[in-house]
């Protein structure tokens, strides 16, 4: 016997219960009802899907089959036997995933329409029970997607699954913020933040130029460059290297952002002081990584260069810098985050009237929390884009590293 899918069963029962429970000022009519019934139908179809696949549940983790697989397979799949083609289970898994996705989307739309038409607060217990049912269905959709992804390499799924998960969190946030009328100061709904983000784009654009283009990028380039050059220069002096390495490690662990007020005093309120903070914050991680990276070449690989009577510069150019690249990129990635943090936090200590850090602290002061969130979203996008760009470059330049190899 096939074990029934308890998650789906529960989703189905809760979903039916939601239809009977109070909804505040709204009712199960029109589109919400249609969509909700569609979602429940999807859940039901998924629940009976195991029978369709002859005991082969799409979501089962590969490995020892449950005892249910001992039952005779469904007539349609019987002629294929044990060595049946991969196409049919994958197609079935894909269909399951699509079904679960469609169901969860329909359910989400249904609940949101209900919310808009007046179901809110504690009175609308039907809405919240329905949300619980939807949560189970979404979980199943994610699970089916993950099962599909582990069976077959689909780059789309690597993006689609996290995206679905993120959308689900945003949806929950929106529903809770609106449904319980949470004060905007505490937690503005995401739709509102998006609206503010769009309307205040000119202001945020200026902030972006001030913080990212003027403060962070020059500081990042100078800091990483100086760290790298220092690392290469001390490479020939083991004594200095042994002295700088522990100090660099120590300094990397220190709260260097604290240097910001000093830099503001030295370089004034405008971007040079922020850039200076970024330089100091990014210097040491880069130094430490450069020293570690230049020591990363294996002993035989080094001996090889010696048998060619290669000069110091040739060994550096042909072998050691290449072997150091993965280390350098690690530092570059860590530093991209550090740099943005440094540039923003340094603005807390005084700026001209723009910049992301200034916008955050000023808006917090005026209790304009949606604008704060919009600025944070902007900073998050900036940070991710910078990080992603460096990661892409890393993929291109260190394609040979075991962690990035594509064996063909």
């Amino acid at each position: 016997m096939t074990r029934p899918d308890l998650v789906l069963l529960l989703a189905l029962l809760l979903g039916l219960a939601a239809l009977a429970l109070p909804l505040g000022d709204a009712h199960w009519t029109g589109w919400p009802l249609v969509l909700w019934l569609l979602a429940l139908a999807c859940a039901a179809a998924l629940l009976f899907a195991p029978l369709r696949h002859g005991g082969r549940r799409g979501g089962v983790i590969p490995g020892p089959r449950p005892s249910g697989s001992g039952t005779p397979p469904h007539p349609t799949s019987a002629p294929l036997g044990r060595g049946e083609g991969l196409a049919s289970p994958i197609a079935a898994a894909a269909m399951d995933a699509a079904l679960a996705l469609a169901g969860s989307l329909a359910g989400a739309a249904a609940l949101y329409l209900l919310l808009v038409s007046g179901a809110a607060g504690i009175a609308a217990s039907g809405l919240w029970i329905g949300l619980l049912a939807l949560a189970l269905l979404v979980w199943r959709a994610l699970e089916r997607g993950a099962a599909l992804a582990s069976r077959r390499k689909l780059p789309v799924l690597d993006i689609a699954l996290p995206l679905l998960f993120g959308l689900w969190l945003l949806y929950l946030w929106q529903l809770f913020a609106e449904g319980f009328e949470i004060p905007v100061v505490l937690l503005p709904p995401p739709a509102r933040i998006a609206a503010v983000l769009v309307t205040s784009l000119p202001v945020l654009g200026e902030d972006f130029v001030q913080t990212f283009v003027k403060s962070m990028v020059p500081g990042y380039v100078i800091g990483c460059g100086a760290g790298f050059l220092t690392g290469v220069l001390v490479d020939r002096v083991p004594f200095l290297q042994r002295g700088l390495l522990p100090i660099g490690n120590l300094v990397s662990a220190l709260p260097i952002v604290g240097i910001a007020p000093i830099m503001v005093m030295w370089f004034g309120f405008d971007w040079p002081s922020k850039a200076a903070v970024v330089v100091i914050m990014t210097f040491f991680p880069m130094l430490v990584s450069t020293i570690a990276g230049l020591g990363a070449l294996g002993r035989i690989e080094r001996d090889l260069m010696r048998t060619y009577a290669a000069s110091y510069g040739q060994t550096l150019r042909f072998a050691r810098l290449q072997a150091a690249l993965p280390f350098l990129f690690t530092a570059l990635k860590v530093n991209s985050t550090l740099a943005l943090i440094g540039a923003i936090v340094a603005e807390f200590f005084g700026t001209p009237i723009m910049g992301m850090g200034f916008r955050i602290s000023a808006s917090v002061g005026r209790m304009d929390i949606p604008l704060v969130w919009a600025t944070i979203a902007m900073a998050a996008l900036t940070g991710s884009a910078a990080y992603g760009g460096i990661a892409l470059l890393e993929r291109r330049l260190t394609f040979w590293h075991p962690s990035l190899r594509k064996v063909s």
Partner: protein
Amino acid sequence: MTTREPAAKSRTWQARLAGGSALPMLAVLLALLVLWYAGTVWLNAPLVIDRYERAGQAEWTAGQLVADTMAMDRPLLPAPHQILAELDKTVFEVAPNSRRSLVYHGWVTLSSALLGFAFGTLLGIVLAVGIVHLRTLERSLLPWIIASQTVPILAIAPMIIVVLGSLGFVGLVPKAIISAYLCFFPVTIGMVKGLTSPDPIHLDLVRTYSASTGQVFWKLRWPSSVVYLFASLKVAVALAIVGAIVGELPTGAQAGLGARLLSGSYYGQTVQIWAALVVAAVVAGLSVAAVGLAERLTLERMGGRP
């Protein structure tokens, strides 16, 4: 650990001094100190000369100038001994519970950092366990956790402080939340790595014993993750302190090292800022060292190589 170890140790201490990093470190630090003094003179001299001129003092010697650059009230760069004097004044000469004591401020920062560190570590471990055991979470949640690293999380600090403050939460907890937020990431990533670090061969071995998921976790995954856990904890504790300090900046908090930095920057009290920075560095260094010590003791008890 054979009986030969003490002998080996006694043999190598000179060798370690010559070949280790203590001597070079000392040399580098000494060089930094010299540079610092030079910087003090170089940066402060214009101010001092300016003051001479305004006082109508036409003649001054180089020696006088150097001495004065290191005795200014609000120098651009205080000399190390000025910072030491300030530290002596605010650490040893004042009662530790006084508002003027850096011990007090350091403790305020450290306590919220540690609270956040504990929360963040716990959260990080729980998330890692979930990610390792549920494929769905690995596929859907892990990318977000990795992406969260690229977000300048510290930027949220002011908002968390203010929002929680408007709800009536003040003091320790909001700062601890920021620290926890910064902490959980390295712990999650490190633990996911650690919990999946056992060789396939070892996993196959316990599978031949038909061990349950729980047994595999406690007997294989958890012990093999300890090394990774401590490596992440060292990063996390340092981040927790950064988080606590930044958490003290936005609202003009009354206590903590961040508050000292802020008030120092308002009133141009550079010596005070530097003293607070030194204490912050010491607190961070000691915390990392404490985690390192805990790591050594744990690994020794687990019979690992020290």
